[in-house]
């Protein structure tokens, strides 16, 4: 009780349905092209409009190509899905940032950077990585398409109130260890279902010390532990980040908002259904070795032996390693890498490019590696250009592509070929996620850069 989650949730309760869920008011609905067409279709079938169109923002990101966006999308089905979103947004009177629009990008990158996602809000989107926006101090979670339709129709959603969990990471992260490593470490401890049924508040010195971009990365990955969402109480860093952003309140409204936002924290006496504490010093750069994000280890560790795996999990464990082409007990350092992907709603922000650049720093891309560097939005892309980083990367043999979800889930052309091994800053290493037969190792931008310049799995701390 008296957690920040309770405060935000309770402030949005329209009613509690008898022997049922809560009718929760939603402040912001984001729509992308993949999980929205059937929701719009549903509204048409029912003959209704969007209840509060001004609270809904649409943009394509999953299907967008990362080159030649000024030309029609070659894949006919992708093109139709992107066009359908534009038509639907127009028909229902919704704001739409189409391809090449300066505000386009991955929805979870654009929301925070434009000041659309604010502390204390309830935010939903038909996308499990909606938890990203929790970094702003909002209650943000992914929903299905029926639920998207629900919010369009009523600006509300019916949800069971999740349980609350606080994860404290105390101490200081070592040099070369990032928010991504912290998240992969937590997943390796909790497994992909360890936080199912919970909403997570991240706290502790190492979390507070993260930049806003690091916090976005951490909250982004909440779903990979099974959590409905994850968030961090807003603080001066949050306000500093949001001030003067396009859709953030201005003038007197800003002062009033900050005054309210400052009250958004868990009480000293807050009681969580579960509370866990970890030490930042225990975390080293992380890599995954299997086919779910919870199968991760320190980069200098070895893959677990079969006898350390509980019996009911062994069949899945063996299937997973067979897919990856790895053996129990194997070390991954030195393993040759074919592809490197920097981007996604997890690590497609400007600081992620700075981190990647810090490792490149005078080195060149390894000739055996194909590298895709994909900014999360046009805002990130423009900043890279403005600061000359595009030229910096070009000189090192890298090319900056155009923004979108790209190889994270390979709905556009950016597919890792079957059998190839990729070090990826994205969020999922599921079978076939980055293309049929593709093998994915999840890691931080630093570790991805180290692989890109050496052509193998390399500890970024040694470069």
């Amino acid at each position, binding site marked *: 009780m008296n957690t920040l989650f309770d405060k935000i949730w309770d402030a949005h309760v329209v009613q509690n349905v008898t022997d*049922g869920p809560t009718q929760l*008011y939603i402040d912001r609905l984001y729509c992308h092209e993949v999980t929205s067409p059937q929701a719009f*279709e549903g509204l048409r079938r029912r003959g209704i409009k969007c*209840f509060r169109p001004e609270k809904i923002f649409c943009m394509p990101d999953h299907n967008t190509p990362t080159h030649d966006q000024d030309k029609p999308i070659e894949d006919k089905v992708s093109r139709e899905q992107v066009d359908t979103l534009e038509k639907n947004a127009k028909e229902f009177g919704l704001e739409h940032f189409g391809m090449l629009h300066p505000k386009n990008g991955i929805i979870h990158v654009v929301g925070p950077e434009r000041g659309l996602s604010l502390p204390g809000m309830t935010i939903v989107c038909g996308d499990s990585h909606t938890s990203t926006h929790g970094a702003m101090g909002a209650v943000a979670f992914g929903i299905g398409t029926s639920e998207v*339709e629900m919010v369009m129709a009523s600006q509300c959603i019916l949800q069971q109130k999740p349980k609350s969990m606080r994860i404290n990471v105390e101490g200081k992260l070592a040099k070369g260890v990032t928010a991504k490593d912290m998240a992969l470490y937590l997943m390796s401890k909790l497994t992909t279902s360890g936080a199912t049924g919970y909403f997570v508040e991240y706290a502790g010195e190492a979390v507070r010390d993260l930049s806003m971009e690091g916090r976005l990365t951490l909250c982004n990955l909440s779903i990979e532990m*099974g959590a409905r969402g994850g968030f961090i109480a807003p603080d001066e860093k949050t306000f500093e980040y949001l001030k003067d952003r396009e859709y953030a309140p201005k003038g007197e409204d800003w002062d009033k908002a900050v005054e309210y936002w400052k009250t958004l924290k868990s009480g000293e006496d807050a009681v969580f259904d579960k509370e866990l504490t970890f030490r930042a010093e225990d975390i080293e750069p992380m890599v995954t070795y299997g086919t779910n994000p919870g199968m991760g280890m320190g980069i200098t560790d070895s893959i677990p032996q079969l006898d350390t795996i509980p019996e009911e999990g062994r069949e899945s464990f063996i299937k997973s390693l067979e897919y990856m082409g790895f053996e129990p007990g194997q070390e991954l350092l030195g393993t040759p890498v074919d592809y490197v992907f920097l981007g996604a709603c997890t690590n497609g922000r400007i600081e992620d490019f700075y981190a990647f650049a810090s490792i490149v720093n005078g080195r060149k891309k390894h000739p055996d590696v194909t590298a895709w560097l994909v900014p999360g939005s046009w805002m990130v892309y423009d900043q890279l250009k403005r600061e000359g980083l595009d030229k910096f990367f070009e000189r090192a043999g890298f090319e900056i592509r155009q923004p979108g979800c790209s190889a994270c889930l390979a709905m556009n052309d950016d597919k890792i070929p079957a059998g190839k091994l990729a070090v990826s800053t994205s969020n*999922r290493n599921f079978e076939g*996620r980055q293309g049929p037969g593709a093998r994915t190792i999840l890691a931080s931008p630093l570790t991805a850069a180290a692989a890109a310049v050496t052509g193998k799995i390399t500890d970024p701390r040694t470069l």
Partner: protein
Amino acid sequence: MKQKFDIIRSRCVPLPLENIDTDQIIPARFLKATTREESFFGENLFRDWRFNPDGTVNKDFVLNDPTYSGEILVAGKNFGSGSSREHAAWAIAGYGFRVVISSFFADIHKNNELNNFVLPVVVSEDFLAELFKSIKENPSMEVEVNLPEQKVTNCATGRSENFEINGYKKYCLMNALDDIDFLLENKEKTEAFETAGL
């Protein structure tokens, strides 16, 4: 598809793997459809496990094994993790499953199943292990899922277990009503909430 749910007695299809994610249930390349034809998604349920990379049928996969059939899918722990794609629930419904039994479901996917009139039934680890054993011993054994009584029975061993579902959702399933019908009826409450101010 909206349909009334009551008692289902059926044979089962076993999938004793843990952490089956929605990318496996329906790979991303099938998410490009803009309409909601369940049959399309049903045809591509577990696509990359059902078919080999060259397009031939993977005879080792359970959905291609004529020994097993039925309206009930029985899966290992943490079913439906990962992406929020409702297409996974459409694929399950489109294939003809009306019930999924597991010892643990991922949150979003569980809601998606309920919103598509597929019933996720959570059973104990022990019940699940015994059920996998029963199906292995006799693939034509049946399971009865009784929604009014919230009871699931392994008809081979006679073992029953109660399962949970909130009263509201149970009412919706039994009467083929969805959440949007409810929310539209409650519009005045939403407007009153807005007027009161956040």
